[in-house]
């Protein structure tokens, strides 16, 4: 193995005395229309290094508020955070490399484990990219499209409910943790009934979905739609209106629209600044252009706005789910294209060709024409994108997933600067990162 270029430097946050103005500029995230001189002016450090009262501390990777294995290096002056650097990679398992060795049929099992809180969205974006390469993106049966929408909206609800739980827990509303997990479990129970698994479903596949909805699914969804609004009203009583809750979140971790756009932030972070950008409405995929819902935006770009946006997005998702129930058509749940769809189970018992066909699809997979494509959809955390380059074989030549958390987490230094170390927890929580997706 030739190691021409090894590393360009350390990952860790360096003490003040060892950094340049440019590094400081990057680390404070104060990179927007700001010259190096201005960034140096920001440096709240005394000129005499001996009087440097700052301290660099580690937060994580084993810290309950870091949602997994996120490590933050914080530079503190008293209780004020001056600089912050997220150090990631502790959960890196080379999923993009793994993806190059899995066929398009198997790829779903890989991508679904990236953002493990919204597995359906990851499967969906991978399937959409594959279908675009195959040229069958317009031929997906209606029932499959509506089922995909149903599952991704319920998934948005379960993901945001978990955010409610962790956000409450991080800020000391510990009973909220139990409530949030309880409601999420209700949604996951439905997922289990439909797909057989609570998480990591591999249910949305190129060509459609893996199976039809089970009998009684409509009643289960109606039960959810009955149950959740009451519980959300309880959340409002427990948190939204409470002075303590507001004190902890309002004005904390503020980011402006220009900063969010420049840093590439998407999802609730971008919307909290007042930019009404939601791919479901602005670049519709599936049948999102046929359902009515509101894009929730904030105005201050603080942690409270991000909390309120997610709370109300649960309500909007329920609105969409209600419309999906009315519009769910009958019909096939996967495309009748022999190339990508295995034969029906009954055919395998009577036909040798069907058996061979089934075997080949699940061992060799199907070949996908040469080309490259990028598809982006709105996951609960922002834009999840999938870039696939195909060389015409049965496995992707390169499969890249643009994880929204990976980009959003780069806003942390910016949001934390000048805040209190106690608010650092609130800021991490409000970004709602999923480390499985950050590190992939």
């Amino acid at each position, binding site marked *: *193995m030739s*190691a*021409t*270029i*090894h*590393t*360009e*430097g*350390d*990952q860790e946050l360096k003490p003040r005395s060892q950094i340049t103005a*440019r*590094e400081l*500029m*990057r*680390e404070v*995230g104060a*990179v*927007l229309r700001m010259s190096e001189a201005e960034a140096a002016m920001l440096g709240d450090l005394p000129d005499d290094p001996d009087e440097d009262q700052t301290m660099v501390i580690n937060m994580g990777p084993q810290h309950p508020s870091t949602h997994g294995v996120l490590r933050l290096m914080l530079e503190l002056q008293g209780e004020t955070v001056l600089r912050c650097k997220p150090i*990631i*990679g502790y959960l*890196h398992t*080379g999923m*993009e*490399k793994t993806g190059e*060795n899995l066929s398009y049929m198997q790829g779903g099992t890989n991508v679904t484990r990236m953002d493990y809180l919204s597995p359906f969205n990851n499967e969906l974006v991978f399937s959409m990219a594959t279908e*675009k*390469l195959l*040229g069958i993106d*317009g031929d997906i049966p209606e029932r499959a499209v509506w089922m995909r929408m149903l599952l991704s909206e319920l998934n948005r609800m379960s993901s945001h409910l978990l955010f409610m739980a962790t956000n409450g827990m991080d800020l000391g509303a510990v009973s909220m943790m139990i409530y949030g997990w309880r409601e999420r479990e209700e949604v996951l129970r439905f997922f289990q009934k439909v797909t057989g698994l609570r998480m990591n479903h591999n249910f949305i596949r190129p060509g459609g979905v893996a199976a039809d909805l089970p009998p009684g699914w409509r009643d289960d969804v109606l039960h959810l739609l009955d149950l959740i609004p009451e519980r959300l009203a309880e959340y409002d009583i427990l948190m939204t209106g409470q002075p303590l809750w507001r004190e902890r979140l309002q004005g904390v971790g503020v980011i402006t629209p220009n900063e969010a*756009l*420049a*840093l*590439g*932030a*998407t999802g609730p972070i971008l919307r909290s600044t007042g*930019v009404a*950008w939601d791919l479901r409405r*602005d*670049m519709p995929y599936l049948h999102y252009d046929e359902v009515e819902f509101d894009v929730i935006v904030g105005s201050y770009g603080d942690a409270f706005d991000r909390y309120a946006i997610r709370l109300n997005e649960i309500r909007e998702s329920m609105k969409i789910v209600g419309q999906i129930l009315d519009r769910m058509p009958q019909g096939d749940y996967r495309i009748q294209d022999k190339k990508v769809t295995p034969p029906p189970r009954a055919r395998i018992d009577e036909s040798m060709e069907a058996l061979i066909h089934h075997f080949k699809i699940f061992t060799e997979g199907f070949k996908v024409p*040469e*080309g*490259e*494509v*990028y598809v*982006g959809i709105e996951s609960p955390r922002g*834009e999840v*994108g999938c*870039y696939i*380059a195909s*060389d015409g074989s049965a496995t992707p*030549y*390169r499969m*890249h997933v*643009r994880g929204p958390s*990976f*980009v959003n*987490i*780069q806003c942390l230094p910016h949001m934390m600067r000048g805040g209190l170390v106690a608010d650092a927890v609130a800021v991490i929580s409000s970004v709602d990162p999923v480390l499985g997706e950050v*590190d*992939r």
Partner: protein
Amino acid sequence: MSDPANPELDAAVAPPEIPTMHGCPVTDSLGQVVLHPSREQYVDVVKALADEGYAMCIDLTGVDYLQHMGRSVGPGVSPERFEVVVNLLDITNRRRIRLRVQVPETDPTLPTLFDLHPGSEAMERETFDMFGVVFDGHPDLSRILMPEDWIGHPLRKDYEVGMIPVQFKEAHS
């Protein structure tokens, strides 16, 4: 196949001569607009596109085409081993554009987009980490996903899976 998000696409690819935008060839990949700037044009093109409204750098990644050198690239563009792929988003006009920049194996460097799109900082670090493409002018080009003393770039096609020496001290490797 037309992309509803890119109504101008059909107009952009319609002329029979090689369509260009900001001096570099434009191709159409399954309804998506792809630009093929050279390394010299790269930053200027991204800047011009940012002025046009493509204000967000949504994704930046690399591809190692070692085993697939015969792929199709833009007209007049010679394929190199590495490719850096940049996805830009225009939220005002609701359109996307993609840039594919060829980066030769002998000199895998590319200027950074940091000054234009600060958000590309982490993505460039990831591309460096995984492919060994060096971004000139990047303020802190350290490894981001692998440990800082790691040898090799894992997503390169000649990086052998399973050939990682045992990294325990005292162990025979």
